[in-house]
């Protein structure tokens, strides 16, 4: 276990250095939601029944969670990059813990996400979003957000390790932008047709978004709907637990098996 901690820390350091040398993807994934907040908040907001300020306050938690869900994309991209550039092969021939490489990646991602969320929160505050609940609840919201990010990163790492090429990973990763569209992150789900509403409410993004709105005090928990949305905190924790329990071991195993092609 101390091997894992030592090697994991080394890999965390490596990942942070990489991001520092190459911050493009990080900057893109963190400025995108700010652009979306301004665009959706002022352009779409004017066409919705909800008053603009109220919609922007509704939107901030949604964008936080949608950005966290980008963990699939970044996790996939970084893992694919590594395995197709051969550096993973070198790690596999070193006398080090095998779980350390993906774990270091997930840990670094968490550090970077935590820091990268601050600008979005600041812009949110500037456009009228507020923390209406207690400090403890707000801390809980942030914790939940990071836990969700951690969970989605493992989906990404598994997909990235399994991908045929960096390009394939990039394309599939890009497609994940539709996931928050099928949730309550940007719009309330009440008025969606029945089956679509059910699908959107079972999207983990909806549970976490609802939990954040509840914990930040931005919107009440819906009275009716699917279980994860009517019990958002428990629903979010359950979703994260399931995702981590499934994808973390699969990704670690996939890494250890090392099925990357020779070229």
């Amino acid at each position, binding site marked *: 276990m101390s091997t894992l901690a030592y090697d994991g820390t080394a890999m965390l350091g*490596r990942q942070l250095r*990489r991001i520092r*040398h190459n911050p493009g993807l990080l900057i893109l994934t963190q400025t995108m939601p700010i652009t979306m907040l301004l665009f959706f908040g002022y352009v779409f907001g004017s066409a919705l029944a909800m008053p603009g300020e109220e919609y922007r306050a509704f939107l901030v938690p949604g964008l936080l969670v949608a950005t966290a869900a980008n963990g699939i994309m970044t996790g996939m991209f970084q893992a694919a990059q590594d395995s197709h550039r051969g550096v993973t*092969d070198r790690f596999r*021939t070193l*006398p080090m813990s095998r779980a350390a490489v993906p774990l270091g990646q997930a840990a670094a991602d968490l550090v970077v996400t935590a820091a990268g969320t601050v600008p979005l929160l600041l812009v949110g505050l500037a456009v009228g979003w507020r923390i209406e609940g207690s400090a403890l609840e707000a801390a809980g919201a942030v914790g939940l957000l990071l836990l969700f990010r951690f969970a989605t990163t493992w989906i990404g790492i598994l997909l990235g390790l399994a991908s045929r090429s960096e390009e394939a990973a990039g394309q599939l990763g890009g497609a994940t932008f539709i996931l928050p569209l099928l949730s309550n992150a940007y719009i309330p789900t009440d008025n969606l047709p029945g089956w679509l509403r059910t699908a959107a409410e079972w999207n983990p993004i909806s549970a976490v978004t609802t939990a954040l709105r509840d914990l930040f005090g931005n919107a009440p928990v819906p009275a009716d709907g699917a279980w994860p949305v009517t019990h958002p905190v428990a629903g979010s924790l359950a979703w994260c637990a399931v995702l981590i329990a499934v994808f973390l071991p699969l990704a670690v195993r996939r890494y250890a098996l090392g099925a990357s092609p020779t070229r």
Partner: protein
Amino acid sequence: MRYGRHMTTTYAVLSEGLEKRFGEVRALQGLDLAVAEGRVCGVLGPNGAGKTTAVRLLTTLLRPDAGSARVAGHDLVREPAAVRGAIGVTGQYASVDGDLTGRENLRLFAKLHRMRGPTGRTRADELLDRFGLTEAADRPTSTYSGGMRRRLDLAASLVTRPAVLFLDEPTTGLDPHSRNQIWETVRALKSEGTTVLLTTQYLEEADQLADDIVLVDHGRTAHTGSPAELKALIGSCAEVVVAHPDAMSGAAAVLDQLTGSEPAFDEERRAVGVVTTDPTLTLPRLVRELDAAGVPLLDASLRPPTLEDVFLRLTDRKELVT
């Protein structure tokens, strides 16, 4: 150190019947290798022979489907961690982190080898210096030339002194200067007692560096021996060039009769070649016999074989070497 014992020699790499398939492709179908401790073994084979697959199996990157192997005295499948502790690997394709600088890469690998703090930093600097990378040390390796990346890759395999070093085509694509640098490194490592297994497509490289050569073809060990033994096995190469294409079959008939081995043709040069172990076949006799048979000779030669000849002969390829 004493590894897998076999008679009186100790072997740093010993494999028996290694097999690996990728779907329909049988990349390895029974590879036997025995590399004595402290020696340089050259694994020679054409594209697709299975060299890289062999290296990936022996360095624990892939699991064999059948067969067994011991590396540095440890069983490949049962003790992969112990194997990893004893080896250094430079794969055919670059395996350093392109987003990190050369120095950061080496420091990271030193850290992962449990060299903490200043020890690791000093080691990284030493290696940068040894491989002429000090000036480029603080640039991301993605900006390195192919040769620089290759040298960094080799440096990364030498962070600790491995007991067994695997080099998969270490000089492919390098200019003569970088190639010589890598050859010198291999020689220096050998003199320090490191066992080296290197794959190559260059016969000259195997001839220069290897104590033992293993010819691999279609995933099998086709032949094993020292460069001299392999050359002796074939004998000499006789080649004649005739005046017009019609005379080639006549020349071939004479050569066949003289040596009893199957001639090879190079239509373009109107050349016919054959190999022989017969010491009584001298150049004057060769010329006399051909002349007596009325073959219009333009040129005739009898020379000791190059490894290229050995290679083409023993791996069942009939083209003539030029």
